[in-house]
């Protein structure tokens, strides 16, 4: 219950005070360059990786990236740069 409350307050504050939502709410920030690069900040760890699929843990839910010939160019605790041919970016909520 408390978690939900804090979430609501944060949501409200971002809207009213015009703060960047990725900072306030621990959301992933995804930058894509066409189909070839995807840069994801604020992830919570790697769940699955193959050359056709990348599954990342987020604070809420998961992120699924589908495509071809995937290579992780860099991986840091909260950032990841993926290269390949990206077809889909899917959010998975339980």
């Amino acid at each position, binding site marked *: 219950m408390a978690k939900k409350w804090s979430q609501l307050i944060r949501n409200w504050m971002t809207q009213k005070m015009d703060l960047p939502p990725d900072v306030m709410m621990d959301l992933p920030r995804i930058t894509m360059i066409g189909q070839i690069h995807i840069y994801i900040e604020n992830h919570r760890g790697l769940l699955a990786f193959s050359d056709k699929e990348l599954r990342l843990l987020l604070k809420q839910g998961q992120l699924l990236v589908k495509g071809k010939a995937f290579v*992780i160019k*860099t*991986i*840091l605790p909260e950032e990841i*740069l993926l290269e390949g041919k990206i077809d889909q970016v899917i959010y998975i909520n339980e």
Partner: protein
Amino acid sequence: MKNQWINLFAGTLRVKVTGKGIERFLNQLTRSGILIWNVKRHGTEAVTFQINVQDAKKLRVPARSSQCKIRFIERAGGPFFLRRIWTNSGFLVGAAAFLIILMFLSNMVWGIEIRGASPAIEHQIRKELADMGVKHGSLQFTIKNVDLLQRDLTDKVKEITWVGVELRGTTYHFQVVEKEEPEKQQAYTPQHLVAAKKATIVKMFVEEGESMVQLNDVVQPGQLLVSGLIGKEEEKKPVPARGEILGETWYKSLVELPLQSTFQVFSGNEARKYQLQLGKLSIPVWGFKKHGYNEFESEESMHQIKFLKWKLPIAFVAKTIREREEVTRTYTKAEAIKSARELARKDIKKIIPEDAKIKGEEILHQSIKNGKVRMSIHFQIIEDIAKGQPIIQGDEE
């Protein structure tokens, strides 16, 4: 993101991870601060990625706790590259040897070209050059520089007036101008012989013409000695008068010589220094000792090292430092007079023609004042006083 170049310098490793839970293992690595890049999946149970060399040891602990096996499959960059060069050092040695040999050959003499000389002179020049060390296959460092070569060659080979020396690449070019010995001028035009200066005639040898003076005559400059008109009064025939008329002439020389004089002479002590000059930086190679001379003169000869047709900014400098000494010479009176006379004689010899002889000398005046010897000497010289004078036949038809 970090610049990958820096990683390449330090050296990188390619790691192959096989087993289950590879993703978990990767998360563990990133959390422990290991930089990972180029992660690729190979099949279902294998992943390869690259890490820095210094992170290799940190890999061990997470690897043990996980169910994966790790293998290093490729090493690249800095230290590994060096090691590979070391194992293949033969190539490196070969390349270095090639460059050194090429440089060595670029600094050799490969050709001597002599132009403008007749075969005999050319042969002589070649012989002299060989003595000086200029021959095929000798290194250019051992050869004096071009100006000195030019001077020595003109000194040693008498038959040449001038020689231009040029070093173009590995070839010495010599441009020779031979002395043209002037052929004895034949006096074909009719002429008289007249006296060039005031003299007493000592000896006469007339080849052609009619002598107008006798032995022991005193002649004035311009006086007719041998007439070029021979024959009887009426039909005088002009001929080129020839002959040698030796006359006694007088010269006066005034010399002044200080009794005490100081000279700069070389003591014979010398120090040699060799340096390698790289641009403006010079590195001593040999001769580190301080010479400790108070007065000295230094001479430098520089040889620039060439590589093929280019001159490298590297030069080999040989420096010779000669000690100079100040010597004070003191004459006694007798010595001073003697050397003053010698000096006067030398002076006179400069003035008179080469074939003239000094017959006698006489001191006219001599004084020693203010530490100086002053002397005027009278010289009697025997020389050829005859001078040709063409006969102008303007009044004849």
